């Protein structure tokens, strides 16, 4: 595509081939990939800018540099398809690097790499949470730049997969993108070059065929915030279970939107919701902050909450379980709240939904990739922990069993909660409580889950942190989390707010636990809520544990939360969710392991969470059910001896986690 556009391509050959290859729409990779990759570099330091430009040119990329973020953004907007990847510095005078990152992710959905001389974990975590594909430490070495093309491919692959999930050409696209006919210059592509050129022939034919098909395909739809809002409204109206693309399309009544667009977006949204459910804790925190927001927000949030929670539950196995527990704990009301916030966040997150998910899978080993989401979680300041503990105490008792289930989710939730609670500390809490109370009782599972999550978290935390975590305190702390989190997340974290509320409800609703427990089983419909809470709760504790564990996540969670607030809500949530999930699941195996272990002897959650970001949201529901039981038992056990529980679970859970595909 680049070739076709006439951009200067340093490597030549293949020119004739590329001419014939007119990528249908979204393929912007030239045939000589990775050569000719169009990079936009943004940095206020001219020295660095120059060095990067030189390095990138040496890699045969096309470089455009800018030392002002605003200018870079306008360039990107003018020429949406003009760049393949963006490299940006973190500290810039005119605009924060993370903000730019968010904008790019939301509007253009391009892979963004962050750089900084600052290599502290919390900043890196923040980068990951905000959706950065990668994070480079200055001084940047040329080897690091040589491989940035992988992010472009990965992103394109995911985009294609989502966009064309009902088309079988995505794989072809991916292949095509990766076939530079002759890039022997690059060590990385040296091997690829030969087989790619042999493949090219065949693929070219396919491409051409595809091109014909793709010409009839609509160009990539950019899901703007308004469009997404419409989408979410339509989904809520229909009910998450009944939301089929066709009906959504009709409801939305947007000209030019195809069923496929809606379908792929719906898929993403479901995943997002699932993640949110796992991150319900965060949401709780967010909800808290959100409490300060006008009622209107709540209203919208509530509607979303249900859907989102469900979606989240569906998408995030772990979250689902945690949500259930959370919901149970939170009396449902909070769950609704959290659900609301989640949807909001989810919506935003959906935008960058893919990114976080992608990120995680990509960079599990790297903080960059996965931390984005996790950052949300990690962002939670450690201060939350003490508070959370207190809260958790109350709710955790009843949810011990629940915690068991939602370990994975809880971890996430905990992380979220932690973040959330930190942010939103007080104002949101009060509001959330009120709101959650008004919320639907249908969310009982949430409340249940929350306490459970809290407990589980506590247990985890205990492992990591120490004594403070009483299972009981978990619930309380969870509430705190939500509160805290909400403060920070006010801007963007609608969902968070809801989660906070969920959290607060947890504490207040211990009583409901019983009701909830029974409800949980019965009310599968609210899994999302559960998940959210559970996740939140879980996350909270996990977060605590995380810092203790020393994983990056923990630290970054805390720090990232504040940072993430600036980020659009969606980003935060996504990041949080993804990070939480990731934390729980993989990347942070050290952290995730213990956390998961604590909660559940096993595992369904962790395993599932990892595996399925996309497809299995439905599966999460099931685990929830028996997860709850486990949680209850887990909680009980936890109460008795947190330490013991932790250790027991920790190891058991570990293995599944370890096996989880990153």
């Amino acid at each position, binding site marked *: 595509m680049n070739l076709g556009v006439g951009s200067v391509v340093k490597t030549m050959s293949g020119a004739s081939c590329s001419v014939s290859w007119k990528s249908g729409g979204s393929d912007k990779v030239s045939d000589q990939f990775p050569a000719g990759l169009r990079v936009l570099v943004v940095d206020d330091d001219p020295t660095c800018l120059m060095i990067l430009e*030189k390095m990138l040119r040496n890699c045969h990329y096309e470089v455009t540099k800018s030392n002002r973020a605003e200018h870079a953004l306008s360039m990107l907007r003018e020429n949406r398809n003009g760049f393949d990847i963006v490299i940006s510095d973190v*500290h810039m005078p005119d605009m924060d690097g993370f903000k730019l990152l968010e904008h790019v992710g939301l509007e253009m959905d391009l892979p963004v790499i962050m750089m900084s001389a600052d290599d502290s974990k919390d900043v890196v975590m923040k980068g990951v949470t905000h959706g950065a594909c990668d994070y480079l430490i200055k001084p940047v070495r040329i080897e690091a730049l040589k491989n940035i093309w992988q992010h472009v491919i990965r992103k394109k692959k995911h985009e294609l997969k989502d966009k064309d999930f009902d088309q079988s050409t995505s794989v072809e696209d991916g292949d095509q993108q990766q076939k530079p006919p002759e890039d022997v210059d690059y060590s990385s592509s040296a091997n690829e070059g030969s087989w790619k050129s042999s493949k090219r022939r065949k693929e070219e034919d396919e491409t051409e065929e595809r091109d014909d098909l793709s010409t009839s395909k609509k160009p990539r739809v950019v899901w703007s915030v308004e469009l997404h809002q419409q989408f979410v409204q339509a989904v809520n109206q229909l009910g998450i279970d009944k939301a089929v693309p066709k009906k959504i399309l009709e409801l939305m009544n947007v000209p030019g939107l195809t069923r496929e667009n809606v379908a792929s977006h719906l898929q993403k949204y479901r995943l997002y919701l699932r993640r949110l459910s796992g991150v319900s804790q965060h949401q709780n925190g967010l909800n808290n902050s959100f409490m300060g927001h006008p009622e209107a927000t709540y209203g919208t949030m509530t509607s979303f909450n249900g859907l989102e929670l469900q979606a989240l539950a569906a998408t995030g196995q772990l979250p689902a379980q945690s949500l259930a527990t959370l919901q149970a704990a939170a009396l449902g009301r909070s769950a609704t709240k959290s659900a609301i916030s989640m949807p909001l966040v989810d919506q935003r997150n959906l935008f960058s939904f893919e990114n976080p998910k992608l990120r995680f899978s990509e960079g599990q080993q790297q903080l960059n990739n996965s931390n984005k989401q996790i950052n949300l979680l990690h962002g939670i300041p450690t201060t939350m922990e003490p508070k959370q503990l207190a809260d958790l105490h109350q709710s955790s008792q009843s949810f011990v069993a629940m915690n068991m289930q939602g370990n994975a989710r809880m971890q996430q939730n905990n992380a979220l909660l932690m973040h959330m609670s930190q942010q939103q500390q007080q104002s949101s809490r009060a509001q959330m409580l009120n709101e959650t109370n008004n919320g639907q009782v249908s969310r009982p599972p949430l409340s249940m889950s929350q306490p459970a999550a809290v407990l589980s978290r506590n247990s985890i935390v205990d492992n990591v942190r120490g004594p403070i975590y009483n299972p009981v305190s978990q619930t309380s702390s969870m509430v705190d989390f939500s509160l805290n989190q909400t403060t920070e997340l006010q801007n963007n974290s609608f969902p968070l707010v809801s989660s906070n509320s969920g959290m607060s409800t947890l504490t207040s609703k211990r009583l409901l636990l019983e009701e909830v427990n029974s409800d949980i089983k019965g009310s599968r419909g609210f899994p999302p809520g559960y998940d959210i809470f559970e996740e939140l709760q879980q996350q909270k504790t996990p977060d605590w544990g995380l810092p203790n564990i020393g994983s990056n996540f923990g630290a970054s969670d805390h720090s990232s939360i504040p940072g993430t607030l600036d980020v659009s809500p969606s980003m935060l949530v996504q990041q949080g969710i993804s990070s939480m999930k990731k934390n729980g699941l993989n990347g942070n195996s050290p952290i995730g392991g213990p956390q998961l272990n604590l909660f559940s002897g096993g595992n369904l959650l962790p395993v599932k969470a990892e595996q399925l970001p996309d497809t299995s949201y439905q599966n999460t529901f099931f685990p929830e059910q028996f997860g709850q039981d486990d949680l209850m038992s887990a909680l009980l056990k936890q109460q008795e001896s947190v330490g013991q529980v932790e250790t027991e679970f920790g190891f058991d859970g570990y293995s599944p986690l370890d096996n989880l595909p990153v």
Partner: protein
Amino acid sequence: MERNNNLHRQVASLRQSLFDQGYVEEQFIELEELQDDATPNFVEEVVTLFYNYSARLIHNIDQSLEEHPLDFAKLDNFMHQFKGSSSSIGAKKVKIECTQFMEYCRARNVEG
């Protein structure tokens, strides 16, 4: 010819001493490698650019050091920028000093 050789040797030893004294580090080598026929004076350009940029930065730092009370956050920011560019060109000592300065800023250590 002899003079050329001599000059070369001097330059080489000067360069080596820069490394030995810890003024520059590996990153500098990378920079040198970047230089090629297409841009023969790359390293020179970059270093010049660095000098310009850091001169400005130092001036700013001086100014803010004059202020009372000291704005540590601002100083920290300056230091961070300085650190970034100095590490990009491989100016090791400068980078270390920057890091130390930042430590002092964090500790609000005026003397430092």
